[in-house]
């Protein structure tokens, strides 16, 4: 018997489920009990699966019959509210009338179910994945602060240990920002690695799907279940999918860690900088080679991602604009959707040219380094309702500050992970970000897991 099983990692739970010393029913019921007890104040879930308990009964039946489907079999998993589901409604965070989504499983949900996962519910997100605060969800470390976003419900649910895994989507940082602010692991795989079919689009060439979890190993297990070519997603690639869990517990022999000193260290809170410098020292002392570098084109990145994201979002919502449905959107999202018409065709294409040039520059860097290390977010979780934050010596809008260090990896489509690397003086989590070559999630996972095993950050929990 495992106490509070929903608070344990997949690495702990899977062997017990397989051996029959833990049942999926006990595990899922524990997750549902924690959600019932704790989520009233966190507001991380928008919907629970009415048949979660029955799904667990079916999983136990399979497990007892020896039909083990892998490490996710019997594990409760939550999905962000922009993943279509057959058994629960999808709202993509909007309450606007005239917006409806089909009742069917997205590709990722179908793969999770095939791997034996129990989809227990859907997590709150900022409307249409625009923005990075996810109201009204609270950060479990301090309920007066935001969880980050737009996968903020997933971040809060995992941080509060309601479920071991929650799926997110990431267009400019929406998996990694809440992972950083809530003190969880979050991985955005390479563009094309995981199908987005059945995920409500935000920006077609920037959107990625990926998990948030307690540990690096747990995210690796989820990637194993959800990766692979899917013709239903035009961005999907037929890249070979290795066993991502094979990178767990490996040494970092001959690892070269790049530290990009421009952009990623221009303007961060002092405690964030200190935690990252500690992480750099850790890798150096563990035998990694540290190589400092610069990527000057990142100075143009914000204009590029805005041009692409605004254009795409406005194109996606064209019908809603025409029919006046946007009047039911929240004010900030309506503003952004209307604003996209001010991005010209040449601006959009210039942004796509910038991406090509940036990808080429980053490829040159990756000839010499294996991962690029830096902070995930320049700041820790900020108070709910604040639109301007103090970062270093300057006041900055939260929108500009919070995704500054994550969107480069969306523009380039590269795999990037956030994992906890300390706490600031207010007790709020700080995230370490590692990125690697295209389709080299193995190196990201190996380097992140090596750091995680040497520290106890993952064992610290918010007082919920």
């Amino acid at each position, binding site marked *: 018997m495992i106490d509070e099983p929903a608070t344990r990692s997949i690495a702990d739970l899977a062997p017990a489920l397989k051996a029959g010393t833990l049942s999926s029913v006990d595990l899922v019921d524990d997750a549902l009990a924690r959600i019932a007890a704790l989520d009233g104040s966190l507001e991380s879930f928008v919907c629970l699966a009415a048949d979660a308990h029955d799904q667990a009964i079916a999983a136990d039946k399979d497990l007892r019959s020896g039909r083990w489907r892998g490490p996710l079999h019997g594990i409760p998993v939550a999905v962000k509210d922009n993943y*279509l589901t057959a058994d629960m409604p999808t709202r993509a965070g909007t309450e606007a009338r005239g917006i409806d*989504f*089909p009742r069917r499983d997205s590709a990722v949900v179908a793969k999770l179910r095939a791997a034996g996962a129990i989809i227990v519910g859907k997590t709150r997100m900022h409307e249409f994945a625009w923005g990075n605060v996810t109201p009204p969800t609270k950060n479990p470390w301090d309920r007066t602060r935001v969880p980050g976003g737009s996968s903020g419900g997933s971040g809060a649910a995992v941080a509060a240990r309601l479920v071991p895994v929650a799926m997110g989507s990431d267009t400019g940082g929406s998996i990694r920002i809440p992972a950083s602010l809530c003190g969880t692991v979050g991985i955005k795989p390479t563009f094309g690695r995981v199908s*987005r*079919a*059945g995920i409500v689009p935000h920006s077609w*060439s920037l959107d990625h799907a990926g998990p948030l979890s307690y540990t690096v190993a747990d995210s690796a297990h989820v990637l194993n279940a959800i990766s692979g070519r899917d*013709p*239903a*997603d*035009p961005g999907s690639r037929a890249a070979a999918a290795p066993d991502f869990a094979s990178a767990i517990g490996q040494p970092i022999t001959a690892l070269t860690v790049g530290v990009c000193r421009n952009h990623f260290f221009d303007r961060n809170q002092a405690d964030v900088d200190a935690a990252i410098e500690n992480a750099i020292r850790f890798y150096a002392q563990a035998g990694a080679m540290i190589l400092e570098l610069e990527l000057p084109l990142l*100075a*143009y990145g*914000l*204009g*590029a991602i*805005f*041009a692409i994201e*605004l254009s795409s979002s406005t194109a996606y919502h064209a019908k809603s604009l025409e029919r006046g449905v946007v009047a039911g959107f929240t004010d900030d999202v309506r*503003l*952004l959707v*209307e*604003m996209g*018409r*001010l*991005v*010209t065709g*040449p*601006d959009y*294409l*210039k*942004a*796509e*040219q*910038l*991406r*090509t*040039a940036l*990808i080429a520059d980053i490829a040159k860097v990756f000839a010499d380094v294996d991962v690029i290390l830096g902070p995930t977010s320049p700041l820790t979780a900020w108070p709910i309702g604040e639109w301007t934050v103090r970062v270093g010596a300057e006041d900055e*809008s939260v929108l*500009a500050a919070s995704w500054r260090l994550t969107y480069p990896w969306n523009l380039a489509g590269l795999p990037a992970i956030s994992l906890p690397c300390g706490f600031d003086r207010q007790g709020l989590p700080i995230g370490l970000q590692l990125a690697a070559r295209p389709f080299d999630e193995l190196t990201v996972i190996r380097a992140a897991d090596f750091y995680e095993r040497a520290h106890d950050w993952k064992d610290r929990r918010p007082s919920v």
Partner: protein
Amino acid sequence: MSDATLDAEKLAEAIGFDLEPSRRVAVLAAFADIGKEIRKLRALDLADVHPAVVFSPLIVEGDHD
């Protein structure tokens, strides 16, 4: 009025940005800082760089719901 705001005003006029006046003012004001970043991008000479968009004459498969 900044260059970015002036640009946005001209563009809004040219494309027939048909929002009610109060919304138009709000959208243009919110676009001012973003417009500055996009203007920075315009100054970059990337004439010889192919955009990261690839045309294909084949039918694009996909999720059309």
